[in-house]
Structure formats: structure tokens, C-alpha cells
């Protein structure tokens, strides 16, 4: 009798373990499904709003890497992989949109050039800085078209981009990139700066703190050029 009771106990215990394991797996799948759905929704909204007639796909990867992987080389599938590590830094859809918009620009570029853009990766490898700056600018356009706040690009860059000592990694300094984005927003979409929804955001505040010198230089530069925001100009 005792044996039977013990066996029954073991049986119930095993069942509970397997159920909990199943539930855990189910919750992981559900979480992945929700994140993937969110990324797809934002990604395709960007593609449609910016009227990008070239295809791109989006994939979520559970690895804890703070970054993305855009496969747009010669035999690669033009897919944007966004890792869990970078998503942990994104606090809103605007910030996810910022990450995706930058990568979409790289994908869009990969369609241009001879042999269906086969040699684009080759050209890009000689001047990565130019293409990074270009992707940042395009990202701002895509975000504004899709109704996202382009200042989110500065915020997410401030969180995830490391500041190297020298520009030897091919990509420009994060600080330079942020100021370039700021300048681009100022020239093309000044309303986002005037009605700044990130005004109280600590990361944006940090950008204002760290970019004070560069912004002062920018102010002088624009003064010298006699530039007032484009949207306020009358004629040319």
C-alpha cells in the first residue's frame, strides 16, 4: 500500500514538472511571438510609409547581443536581425523604429548599383562612415514619414553606441553621429526639436550635456551659412 502511495506521489510530481516545463517553453514561444510581431509591425510600417519598393525582412533573435545584423551582401538574404540585447535598451516603439529605420536604409542601398546591387557591399566596405551617416539621415526621414519621433534615434544611439578613442573601426564616433542627426533634424524637421517630447528624458539630457561644444560649433556654422530652417524659407 505504502509503495503504491509513493508511486502515485512520484507520478504526480513528475506530471507537475513536465507541466511546468511545458508552460515555460510555451511562455518563451509566446514572448518571442509577441516581440517578433511588434518588430514586424514597426518594420513594415516604416517600409510602407517611406514607400520603399524594395523588400526587407525582419527577424528577432534571443541572443543577448546589443546590436543588429543586416545581411545584405552578395549571397545574403537582405534580412535585418534584431537581437534581444538591443531590445532591452528600447523603451518605446520609436526607439525600435529608430534601430530598424537605420538598417532599412542599408538594405535599400543594397538594391542599387550594377548586377542588382551585387557590388554594393564592396563599395560600402571602403567608405563605411559615409554609409553610416547616410543611413542615419534616411532613418530620420523614414521615421518622420511613419509618424515616429526621429529624436528617438539620438536617444537610442546615446544608450547603445560605444565611444571609441579613434575612428579605426570604420564607423564614426557616436558623438559625431548624434550631432549629425541633430543637425539633420534641425534642418529638415525642426518641429520635433521645438516641441521636444524627449525634453525630460535622461538620455536626451545626457546628449545635450555631452554635445554642448559641438552644438555651439553647429550654431556658429549655421550662422555663417545664414541658414534658417528650410521649412521656413520663402523660395530659394
Amino acid at each position, binding site marked *: 500500500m505504502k509503495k503504491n502511495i509513493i508511486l502515485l506521489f512520484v507520478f504526480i510530481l513528475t506530471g507537475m514538472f513536465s507541466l511546468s516545463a*511545458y508552460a515555460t517553453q510555451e511562455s518563451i514561444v509566446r514572448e518571442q511571438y509577441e516581440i517578433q510581431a511588434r518588430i514586424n509591425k514597426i518594420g513594415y510600417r516604416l517600409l510602407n510609409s517611406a514607400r520603399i519598393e524594395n523588400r526587407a525582412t525582419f527577424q528577432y533573435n534571443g541572443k543577448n547581443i546589443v546590436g543588429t545584423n543586416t545581411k545584405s551582401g552578395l549571397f545574403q538574404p537582405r534580412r535585418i536581425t534584431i537581437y534581444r540585447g538591443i531590445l532591452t535598451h528600447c523603451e518605446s516603439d520609436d526607439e525600435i523604429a529608430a534601430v530598424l529605420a537605420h538598417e532599412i536604409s542599408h538594405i535599400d542601398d543594397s538594391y542599387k548599383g550594377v548586377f542588382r546591387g551585387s557590388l554594393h557591399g564592396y563599395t560600402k566596405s571602403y567608405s563605411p562612415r559615409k554609409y553610416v551617416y547616410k543611413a542615419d*539621415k534616411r532613418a530620420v526621414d523614414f521615421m518622420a514619414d511613419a509618424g515616429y519621433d526621429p529624436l528617438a534615434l539620438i536617444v537610442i544611439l546615446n544608450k547603445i553606441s560605444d565611444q571609441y578613442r579613434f575612428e579605426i573601426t570604420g564607423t564614426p564616433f557616436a558623438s559625431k553621429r548624434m550631432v549629425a542627426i541633430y543637425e539633420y533634424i534641425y534642418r529638415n524637421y525642426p518641429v520635433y526639436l521645438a*516641441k521636444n517630447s524627449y525634453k525630460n528624458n535622461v538620455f536626451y539630457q545626457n546628449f545635450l550635456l555631452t554635445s554642448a561644444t559641438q552644438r555651439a560649433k553647429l550654431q556658429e556654422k549655421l550662422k555663417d551659412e545664414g541658414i534658417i530652417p528650410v521649412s521656413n524659407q520663402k523660395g530659394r
Partner: protein
Amino acid sequence: MKKILLFFVLMCVLSLQVNAKQLIYDDFVNLTLKGYAEKTTQKKETDIEDEFLDSSFYKSYANSKKDKYKPQSLIEDSFVAAALPYLNLEKPAPKFHANFENYKKYPIKIHTPEYITTKNKKLQGQKLRFYTMEETYLPDGQILPANTEINAKVEMVSQNNVWGVPADMIVNNFTLELASKRSKKIVHNLEGRIEKTGANRSYWVYPIVEASCWTVFCAGAVVIPIRGGHAKIKPGEVHTVYYQP
């Protein structure tokens, strides 16, 4: 009976192992934060009040330190504040409400009389004027006469670079002003954009450099400073944008 029971127990144990494999453990957390939770709870339990600090002048010192590191006031963007009177506070309308099922598009052929090139460093963000090439029939019987002005904007300019990397330019935001029945002018957004890229010289610059490195000692390196071509729109060049009712 014993054999059946033994078999049953074995099955239970086996199923336990199989299902346990499905659990995914975060190795990184296990490795680095092992015992962290216990430590934090222990810390709470073993918190000891510093009676000396409470009763001494250090308490007031600590408080003054705290005051010093209180969050500072918000950093104002003086640059934007200075430019505020010049800023256009009209938010661009999002374009994601487009009707992609509507295939009815009315092509409008346009050209510009100006020579637009990325050599002009101030080109980015400039307004451009295009003109219709010919009469265009729009829905509702409207006729768009030739030489009608169409406004556009140089949305993005990416300058050329060494290694023969070309410049890029995108002209977008085409708008057309049409007189409505109430004689008020309505601005219509037109579909389409002009994307221009300069001559891509990297296709031959890199092979020359590479080949020279294998033959003559890096003689081909002299071609590295060669820049790619500028993107340009020539006067009279015909482009097509679309009117979508």
C-alpha cells in the same frame, strides 16, 4: 507486480529527464549572478544601524553631501531656443495612411531648368522647382497645363568619398498646388522621388590598388584619393511623379 511497478517508476524518471531538458537556463545569469539574490536578502537581514554616525556630526555632513548631489535642473537646448522664432512648428503628416489598393496614378512628366549637383554643399534641405513638360489630364476633368510649377525638396545628400565612392542625392516631397472649385488653392502631395547617385569609381579604384600591391610596390595607392562622382540632375532631364487622387 513488482516488475510493473519498477517499469512505471522508470518511466516516470525518464519522462522527468526528457521534460527537464526543455527548460532553458540563462547560463550567463547563473554564472555571474549566482547567489546574488540570497546575498541581497541577507544584506537586508544583517543591516546594522551606525549609531556612531547617527550621533556624530558626520550625519549632518552626509546629509549635506546628499543635498549636493540632488538632481540638477533640466539642461535647456539653448541652440533650439535661440532659433525658435524661425522654426516652422508644423508637423509633417505621417504617410502610413496611404491607400495601396488604389492603383490609379496619373503620371506627370517634369523637368527642372536648373543644374542641381551635390558639389553645392548647401544643397541638403533646399527647395527645388520643377515644371510640367506637357498638359496632363487629371481626374474630375482637370487639366494641368504645361509649365505648371511643382515644388520639391532635396531630402538627403550624402557626399562622395575617396576610394571612388560616389555621392547620393534624394529629391522628395513633391507638391502641386491646384485651384479648387471654391477658388482656394489646395496643395496635393505627389508620389515618387528622384534618387541620383554619382559615378561609382570604386569598381576600378580598388582593383588597381590591389593589383599594384601584388606587382609594383603599392604604386597604385596613388589612385586611392580619387573620389566618386557627384550626383546631379541636369536641366531638361525628364522625371516622372504621380498624382494619386
